[in-house]
């Protein structure tokens, strides 16, 4: 098992190098630091001296890949590629273009993101699986058809409308919860209700639809027929056999997104003013702070790859037929 995990981790390294090269070329080769400096300083009335000064302040005044002025290893380390990209591997994100320490920001902003993401995931899972079981139980009837069409209808609504509509109805018309904001501890609970509820409602269409397909695939299998043939009730079949076997695809689908929960949701967080990583990214985009965007791209990829590895491991845990080799 340990060797398997180690080997999976080894596979991840070339992919991370690839991600790093892509971000590097996007941020530094497609656009020279000069362009970025000009962007930050405003396109008009910008002098070459101002550009040089900005670059020196933010550490963009080094050569891209190879520094002729230095000898030995320093020729490689005193470059933009080394200081800005290679250091990402040890999670040294450096400082943002505004001068804040990105790693510190990320550590602080991770928790509000999780406070929204974890309840949304857990309650959402419960709701989706319950509804999907219901549709699978009534498969082929009008309840099922209505449910499927309602699901398509819900999928067809943009996430923006769920948020705007939810905020308008719950906060502005009915004054049930505050429209936005965040605070730590239990007093922050009232701020979390609406974003979590909207995340669940927004995901119920696609989630239910997906789990329903999984259940229906299982229901057509031979062991289910056997279970029915021996006289088990339909509810017993669904809960004792179908649900248990459907847990394999469900679980692996969930595991892959768990690490990404840290990243938070761009839309929800920025609409509700939650100081998480999602709104951090959005603010960076609006302020055109490329250092933060670069760090988030790398962090997101690392988390995604961790998710993939966890998925493979969880496969072997829930399905004894799969052996790691």
């Amino acid at each position, binding site marked *: 098992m340990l060797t398997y995990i180690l080997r999976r981790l080894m596979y991840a390294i070339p*992919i991370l190098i690839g991600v790093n090269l892509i971000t590097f070329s996007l941020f530094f080769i497609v656009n020279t630091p000069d362009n970025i400096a000009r962007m930050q300083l405003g396109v008009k009335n910008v002098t070459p001296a101002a550009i040089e000064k900005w670059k020196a302040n933010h550490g963009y005044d080094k050569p891209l890949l190879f520094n002729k002025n230095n000898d030995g290893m320093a020729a490689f380390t005193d470059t933009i590629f080394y200081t800005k990209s290679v250091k990402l591997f040890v999670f040294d994100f450096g400082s943002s273009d505004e001068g804040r320490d990105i790693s510190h920001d990320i550590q602080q902003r991770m928790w509000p993101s999780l406070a929204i993401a974890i309840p949304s995931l857990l309650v959402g899972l419960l709701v989706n699986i319950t509804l999907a079981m219901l549709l699978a139980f009534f498969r082929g009837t009008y309840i099922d058809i209505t449910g499927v069409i309602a699901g398509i209808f819900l999928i067809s609504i943009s996430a923006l409308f769920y948020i*705007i509509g939810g905020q308008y109805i719950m906060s502005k018309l009915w004054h049930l919860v505050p429209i936005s904001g965040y605070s730590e501890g239990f007093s922050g609970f009232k701020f979390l209700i609406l974003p979590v509820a909207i995340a669940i409602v927004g995901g119920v269409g696609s989630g239910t639809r997906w789990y329903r397909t999984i259940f229906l695939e299982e229901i057509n299998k031979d062991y289910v027929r056997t279970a029915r043939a021996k006289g088990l009730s339909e509810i017993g079949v669904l809960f004792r056999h179908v649900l248990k076997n459907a847990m394999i695809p469900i679980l692996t689908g969930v595991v892959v997104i768990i690490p990404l929960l840290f990243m938070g949701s761009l839309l929800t967080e920025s609409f509700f003013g939650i100081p998480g990583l999602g709104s951090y990214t959005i603010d960076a*985009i609006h302020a055109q702070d490329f250092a933060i965007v670069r760090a988030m791209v790398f962090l*997101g990829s690392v988390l995604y790859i961790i998710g993939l590895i966890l998925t493979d491991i969880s496969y072997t845990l829930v399905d004894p037929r799969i052996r790691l080799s």
Partner: protein
Amino acid sequence: MNIVETGLSWWQVKPDVLWTDWLIYALLIVVAVFINHARQHEHLRAPWRLILRRRLAMSSCIILLAFATVGLLDSVHFRQAVEQRSDGTIRYGNESISLFDQIVLPLKKYTEKTYSAPFAVQLYSKENIEMDDGSMRRDYPRLKYGGAHLADKPSARYEDIKSRVITALWKAGVLIVAITIILALWRGAKRSQGLACSLRSMWLGHGDIPWKTIIATLAFIIILISLSLHLATVYHIFGTDKVGQDVFYLTLKSIRTGLVIGTLTTLVMLPFAIMLGIMAGYYRGWIDDVIQYIYTTLSSIPSVLLIVAAVLMIQVIIDNNPDVFSTLQQRADVKLLALCFILGITSWTGLCRLLRGESLKLREADYIQAAQSFGVSNLKIITRHILPNVMHIVLILVVIDFSGLVLAEAVLSYVGVGVDPSMISWGNMINGARLEMAREPIVWWSLMAAFVFMLMLVLTANLFADAVRDAFDPRLRNS
């Protein structure tokens, strides 16, 4: 306008084809070739017949066609003649307008000062108005165009709307009956039935084609068009936005942006995905390793972040080279195209993975082994045997992706990495309206218009995609 003054007609124009226009024309040709090809092959025709037999799918298809028509009319751009110089040459305007603009010219031209509610005759906010006797009064000013035909009697508005609705419905009814009769005659002529007999079997639902659904959907569209012809020309039926533009016009123009993103993205990514996916599965070995590495790396970057990074970079390039584009419109157009490319790059990996898996399976099939042993070249095997057998996957994914891309446009525009702010799109409409939610009374009409039109497009696309998947997915067909 000076068009009339100079004695030039609106059709004295110079075509002005934008980049996305070219690609839309290319897409039309691809679709036409595909339809022509599918018509000649029974095995390709069968699933389509299956799709169009389903009522929901047929109805969605017709509505999608209506959307596509608007989008296509909006993709024929030209510049109008502005003045005729003394030496006989004609000077053309700077703004390129589309055929669609020309059709809905009143909507485009009738701009008010600022917000006004749907069907309003007065502005949304109070202003100082100078009275005839020179005194000032604070009141809601009359709109310049909304309800202008009512002159001094704004109170007659409800009567006027009522009579216009009745006229519109009456005319639409006549048109619907006429179309029904024409369709019945056409159907009857094919199977040598009389009109009454044909109408009766259409009503009873004989045969495969769901005629009742077709006519109901057409009726729905005709009624909407008729209503907007009678109402939108004299009122702002969805109100006006912050700078006084007609919201109905904006939401109609957004259709093209949505369609461009939904279709061109697919068009630009398909060649890559198909070629790489099949190559990886067919050749295996190091080619497979390299291609797998590329798509695993790309797909491990969360797509939103990759899009954000790429769009930010492209924006910097475009903003730093403003001289390349002669007009704002061209610049916005190139940005839109760049967005399509970026969305394409992030979305081809899923298709590529599926195609690789399918090709891996296919290359072991007996008929391909046979072709290989006969010495058929690899290229020929791929184009003749593998490609046609994976096309159903491509088709299913293309239609499924479409609605997701239309929705993505709105979100990306909100995030600030979507289409150009000067381009009319649902994302920009929502973004602009979002800030006005806090106003009292609330400005809801822009949001509502964007919501209704987006929902209609995405919902019909999803319903259609569902039918396509059911018809083309062999796994589902067997069970």
